[in-house]
């Protein structure tokens, strides 16, 4: 579980997880603390005031309440779809990569076809024929969203399947299904988590887009339907920006937080991407300037990251064995042009 520990130590990940935690809290308890989002409470299109913190809609509904209530509906659907998409993608990807042969040919072909088809028009056709509601929305998002994960996970499976532990399991007589789900699956934690995040970002964005088009259940309060009504009522032309801004900012914050966590995962799995700041500070102490290549290195725990680097003896640089998959990257030392 060192992956999750690394994740929590990464600044970007912590920041992203904090934002996500805040939104999770809002989605969980928020709707009980605000007024009924569907009820007509005040004057139509009143600007933000002490009574209505984010103003009211054309129907006199509380925009603040709608934004909070929308957080629950939109985020729940987004995360559920993200989970299902990840599971389907992982199953298909692992099956294709591990079983090989015609299974791989068929599944890869299917994956690539779904990957190249433009998602939105397909989703529109699907959603238009299905009865509007969360279940149809989830179905549409899953069908148009699974392919990317399947492709990434297949590639990872192909390289993992060559590892000794998989061969040992095969020789040991473990069933293929068991190897797929108990040997391969847990060894792809970082890729699967990152796939889950990507799928969730997609699910939230596409859901908001489809609902904005009027393909969701417009009687429900979600982030997408909030924007649908705002656009339907031509709120921009009356300069009622408050009906549009809050929802968009919330969608962007959630998306940004998720992407930040994904960045952190990239940095953990690819040390070369880690911030060069620490490395440059160390080089500066040694009176050297950095070359082009960013070495894969790790400072002694707690020395540089605590930002007190200048008061300490130069931390010991050591290449980081083990956690880097490519031996070439791991064996390379710092390359300063002294």
């Amino acid at each position, binding site marked *: 579980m060192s992956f999750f520990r690394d994740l929590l130590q990464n600044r970007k990940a912590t920041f992203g997880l904090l934002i996500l935690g805040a939104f999770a809290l809002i989605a969980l308890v928020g709707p009980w603390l605000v007024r009924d989002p569907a009820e007509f409470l005040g004057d139509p299109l009143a600007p933000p005031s002490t009574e209505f913190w984010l103003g009211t809609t054309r129907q006199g509904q509380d925009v603040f309440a709608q934004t909070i209530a929308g957080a629950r509906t939109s985020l729940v659907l987004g995360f559920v779809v993200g989970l299902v998409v990840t599971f389907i993608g992982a199953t298909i990807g692992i099956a294709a990569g591990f079983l090989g042969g015609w299974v791989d040919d068929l599944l890869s072909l299917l994956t690539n076809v779904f990957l*190249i088809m433009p998602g939105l*028009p397909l989703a529109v056709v699907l959603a238009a024929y299905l009865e509007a509601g969360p279940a149809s929305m989830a179905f549409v998002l899953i069908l148009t969203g699974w392919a990317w994960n399947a492709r990434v996970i297949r590639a990872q499976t192909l390289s993992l399947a060559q590892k000794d532990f998989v061969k040992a399991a095969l020789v040991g007589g473990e069933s293929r299904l068991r190897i797929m789900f108990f040997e391969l699956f847990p060894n792809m934690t970082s890729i699967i988590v990152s796939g889950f995040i990507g799928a969730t970002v997609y699910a939230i964005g596409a859901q*908001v887009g489809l609902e904005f*088009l*009027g393909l969701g259940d417009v009687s429900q309060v979600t982030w997408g339907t909030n924007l649908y009504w705002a*656009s339907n009522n031509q709120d921009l032309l009356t300069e009622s920006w408050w009906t549009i801004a809050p929802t968009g900012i919330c969608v962007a914050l959630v998306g940004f937080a998720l992407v930040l966590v994904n*960045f952190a995962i990239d940095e953990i799995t690819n040390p*070369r991407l880690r911030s060069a700041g620490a490395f440059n500070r160390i080089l500066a102490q040694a009176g050297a300037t950095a070359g082009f*290549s*960013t070495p894969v290195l790790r400072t002694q725990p707690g020395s540089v990251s605590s930002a007190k680097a200048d008061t300490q003896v130069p931390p010991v640089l050591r290449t980081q064995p083990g956690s880097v998959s490519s031996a070439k990257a791991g064996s390379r030392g710092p390359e300063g042009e002294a």
Partner: protein
Amino acid sequence: MRFLLRRLGFYLLAAWVSLTLNFLIPRLAPGDPASALQARFQGRLEPSALAAMKKVFGYTDAPLYVQYFDYVKSLLHGDFGISVAYFPARVTEVIGSGLMWTLFLAGTSVVISFVLGSALGLLAAWRRGGWLDSVAPPAFIFLGAFPYFWMAMLLLFSLGFVGGWFPVRHAYADQLTMGWNWPFVLSAIHHAVLPATSIVIASLGGWLLGMRNTMIGILAEDYITMAQAKGLSPSRVMLHYAARNALLPNITGFGMALGFVLSGSLLTEIVFSYPGQGFLLFQAVKSQDFPLMQGLFLSITVAVLAANWLVDVAYVFLDPRTRR
């Protein structure tokens, strides 16, 4: 050559899958699409025309495979049926009028965003840890997290509506006639600025990061050190040694991202009432115009597949390894 033919085969297969999906979705969906069609056209179409219409969609009493062949035959004859929203225009005519605008808007913005994003990513990786490297990636990722259409609304409101610097709707000024004359071209460009900017802002971050991350990997290669050791000028090392190689994965991503960016640009068109495919899609959804919706799905898919094939052709020119 074999590479290109294999890709072409794949795109044909993808086209076939999408037209088959197009055939199956209405038939697997709950409810009876034939009677829905009938109800919608009742009183607007002659009974004989309605029968012909049903035949185009294959909604006959014939077995499914006969319906399927009828449907494929109509498609191959370029017959997508009649639009409900733009009755009595044929779907193909309606789509044709919008396709050009979508290709213009989405095509221009995708190219601008790709070039600009890759250039910024290149510079960010070149000056690793510099101000561009520390500011640009998070800033554009944050901007990219906004839904495309929301970004469009923001620009429309601030620069178009309140600022009044750019037109807020349509693709060209109403009083102009379409054609290759300066007033029209300038008006079309003027109208495209805001929608294109919103697409570029929302999609730039992906290219920037892709390019930056590949560059960081490539700058650690021995041939870069070698080029520097030979005393080549920094700009030559950057552009001829590093950037060219770093661009290849981004170009592969370019083809894959086209569908995604196009989807976003469809929503942007709706915000700006831009008369492209997205605006038509919106009209189709509003008036439950299934023939138009399905025609749009097919035409957009074909456009994406064709664009991908062009990317493949470009790739063959750029990467000698595919020419074997």
